[in-house]
């Protein structure tokens, strides 16, 4: 596999965001779908397990950065790396807890554990009144005060877009390195036959957990970049939103689960489809999204890139 085209696509979009800052919001929206599909893909594509709870990781990542900006303003610009680390750390912790418990079990049980994850964390934050509870975190005035007006706006526009694209890029690299090494063979064996893999001396839980935590950490980074930095606010009803789960599944399956080019292609098409639906059928975006996922599962389960890859060796090498 030669991941130069997908990596190049992210770098090109990043250059575009810096060169044309007035379009950085649109670039960030497209990039969000790509990176979302890409991060989801690391777990779902590599293990063929389904995670219905990853909006929880987006949310917890957003809260990490949001809390750092709001509660540690004395740190100045250092709030960003510290907040991102906090968000990713919390996402990793959550993934380790849920994964260590539920990944010992097979697919059905794991799906059940994750489907409650998003709701569970949302109810904890609202119920225990953590980090603003149901009212959420408003970061705008704090960001203006800490970073100054110009830098804050630059971070919210160009910075957010670049960080989202960076998340997509790291996801491609993560997928590449996981697959290139020992873990890649182990995960391939687990996908084909988990029992046989166990007999061969592979510890399935360990490798599933590796993919799960990697995916969660990158989702956390994405959530921080998109919600806290880009929108300057974190609302529980907004970040723990079931639609992001469907968005991620739509992008990933449209492009092709398990491929690294798939989420880029899927993200572009999906953004285009949503944009058109927004103009011609406003209010029906979620309906169309769920319809897309449903129809893709029924009629194109390997996705666009996945289906093309089966046709030719060259495509498989250059559009992995």
């Amino acid at each position, binding site marked *: 596999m030669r991941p130069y085209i997908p990596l190049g696509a992210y770098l090109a979009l990043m250059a575009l965001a810096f060169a044309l800052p007035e379009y950085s919001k649109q670039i960030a929206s497209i990039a969000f779908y790509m990176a979302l599909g890409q991060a989801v893909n690391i777990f*779902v594509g590599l293990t*063929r*397990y*389904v995670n*219905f709870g990853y909006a929880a990781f987006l949310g917890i990542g957003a809260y990490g950065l949001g809390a750092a900006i709001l509660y540690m303003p004395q740190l100045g610009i250092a709030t960003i790396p510290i907040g991102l680390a906090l968000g990713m750390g919390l996402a990793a912790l959550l993934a380790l*807890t*849920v994964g260590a*418990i*539920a990944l010992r*079990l097979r*697919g*059905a*049980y794991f*799906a*059940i*554990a994750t*489907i*409650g*994850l998003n*709701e*569970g964390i949302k*109810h*904890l934050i*609202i*119920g*225990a*009144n953590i980090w603003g*509870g*149901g009212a959420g975190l408003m970061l705008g005035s704090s960001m203006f005060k800490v970073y100054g007006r110009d830098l804050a706006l630059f971070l919210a526009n160009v910075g957010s877009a670049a960080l989202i694209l960076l998340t997509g890029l790291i996801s491609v690299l993560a997928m590449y390195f996981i697959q290139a090494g020992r873990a890649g063979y182990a995960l391939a064996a687990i996908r084909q036959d988990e029992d046989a893999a166990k007999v061969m001396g592979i510890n399935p839980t360990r490798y599933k957990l590796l993919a799960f935590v990697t995916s969660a950490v990158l989702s956390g980074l994405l959530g921080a970049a998109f919600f806290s930095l880009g929108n300057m606010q974190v609302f529980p009803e907004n970040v723990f939103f*079931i639609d992001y*789960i*469907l968005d991620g*599944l739509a992008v990933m*399956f449209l492009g092709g689960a398990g491929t690294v080019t798939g989420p880029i292609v899927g993200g572009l098409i999906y953004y285009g489809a949503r944009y058109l639906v927004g103009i011609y059928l406003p209010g*029906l975006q*979620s*309906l169309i*999204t*769920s*319809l897309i*996922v*449903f129809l893709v*599962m*029924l009629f194109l*389960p390997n996705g666009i890139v996945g289906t093309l890859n089966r046709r030719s060796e060259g495509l498989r090498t250059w559009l992995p």
Partner: protein
Amino acid sequence: MDVIPYFLSGLILGSIYGLTTLGLSLIFGVLRVVNVAHGSFVMLGAYAAYFAFILWAWPPFATALLAFAIGALLGYLVYIGVIKPLNKAGELNVLVALFALGALIAEIARLLWGPDFVGYRWNIGSVEVAGLQIDISKLAGAVLALAIALSLDLLLRRTYFGRSIRAVVQDPVGAMVVGINVDRVFAASAAIGIAITTVGGVFLTLFIPVGINPYMGGPYTLIGFVIAVLGGLGSLLGAYTAGLLLGVIESLGFYAFSVAGFAEPSEMALFLEFALLLLVLLFKPTGLFKL
């Protein structure tokens, strides 16, 4: 003691939870498929109860029959259209398709009936039990839910149809060899499972006078899964018993969280249920009961 009323009302709500989860457990037990669209079928049942009451003044228990028919038809379609064609492709595909279907049903409901919370009140008096005023409608719902759970169990134990279902559960290939139409058993189980889920949604409206909404399914999906796992995935009476248990835990949890001074005790009760799910998966993933 003011704990007793919470215990009682938890038990009554728990009976409805148990009923709602029977369908989930039946489908998993027979088809080995987790119905992640569960909540949306609960929602459809709730809307059926609401419209039948508002438009035709039907009491919810009459609507339950209609909801059973609608649910059975939908369940059959779900089997023919989603589960059967996708089962060969693997668990991931079935789960994702069902998840998308659940979201699709919720979106269609919003398109047809709007995003607002609606509800109705069916008042047929109340009785006093241990110092607690209990609506007769709720009490009757709880008793009827128990009756449905017991008759479903009887159906599985005592009839030819029930025996063929159990045979398929034990060994699908063996069942086929002795002349059981496995495909028909699968279709019937999906139909009955989703029919009961929909009926559960009808009964649930007795407890949520203003809580009917296209997106109401989410928490009930979570609750359904907690109960199903507690009771042992696939066990019917286990699911019903776990439903009672969860109703009590939810109610007492709500009481404890409000005494402890949490601003949103009902949200905390839902978190408690999620934490409970993880604990059960950690210590006893096969469920608490052997029923």
